[in-house]
């Protein structure tokens, strides 16, 4: 008889713990960010025109040999503006090349944006159609990938970079990575 008294309470408590665990596990502000299945895999090949010299094409193999950070942005992207000073500060340390990936943008708008805010990028690739971006699993901007010297994707961040993300996630990966001073 006693069981029938505490059983509903126990079920309720178990449910409450389960739901509290759910809330706790989804506490991260970027809980909507999809984990990339490409981490640890070779970066997808691409051949994209350079924003500043449309006649010149850059391929993935041109970037091999040293790590690089691929930063997806667009002049239409508000958060890219927020991220821009952080990215500029990081690029100025010159530890790795920061490659811009101008996604679904009008080249004229992109050039104006860079002229206005400054160009932190080593080179900016232009993907107006967004076809190559699908191979990278890009689904919004800003997104940032770290590719190592062997062309393996080591890290991806969805949403704007901030100093905390760079210090807590990016820096530990860069420490000891081949080709990083």
């Amino acid at each position: 008889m006693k069981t029938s008294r505490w059983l509903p309470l126990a079920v309720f408590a178990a449910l409450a713990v389960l739901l509290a665990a759910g809330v706790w596990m989804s506490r991260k502000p970027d809980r909507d960010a999809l984990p990339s299945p490409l981490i640890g895999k070779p970066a997808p090949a691409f051949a994209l025109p350079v924003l500043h010299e449309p006649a010149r094409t850059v391929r993935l193999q041109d970037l091999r040999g040293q790590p690089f950070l691929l930063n997806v942005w667009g002049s239409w992207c508000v958060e890219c503006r927020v991220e821009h000073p952080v990215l500029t500060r990081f690029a100025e340390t010159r530890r790795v090349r920061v490659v811009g990936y101008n996604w679904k943008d009008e080249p004229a708008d992109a050039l104006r944006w860079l002229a206005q805010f400054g160009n932190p990028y080593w080179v900016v690739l232009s993907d107006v159609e967004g076809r190559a971006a699908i191979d990278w699993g890009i689904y919004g901007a800003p997104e940032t990938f770290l590719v190592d010297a062997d062309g393996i994707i080591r890290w991806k961040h969805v949403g704007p970079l901030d100093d905390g993300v760079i210090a807590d996630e990016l820096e530990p990966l860069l420490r000891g990575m081949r080709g990083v001073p």
Partner: protein
Amino acid sequence: MSARLAAGLLCAVLALGAGTDVHAQANQQADAAPLRFTDPAEEARFHALAAELRCVMCQNQSLADSNALIALNLRREVLALMRQGRSDAEIKDFLVARYGEFVLYKPRMEGRTWLLWAGPALLLLAGAGVVAVVVRRRKPADRVVAPDEEQEW
């Protein structure tokens, strides 16, 4: 494992309330032209496939329902892959390789997802067990009570 399931359920609930998204989509209008199908069979296959795929941006809509630009691009990609003669499974693999398991509305049966698949059946079994225990406990009590009731009547 069950915590992960709970987290998934909760995410679905919380996503309804979460409005602040710092991850943005382009605002291009130029390529919003509707897809053209060559025949009704292709159209039917495309819609069936797009309904099973999830939009990566607006995460509670299918690829078929979503107006996000990335969904439009991915619909194009799916149609292009269909025209290359790829099977539905190959197209799903293509998207999973790029965007992860998340794009499948129907998760695959594997080690990580067995609880998700078996969960409802397990809950039903547990419920049946509780009902069985309750019924079995009640029976002897009824037999005791019944003669008393007859006497009073």
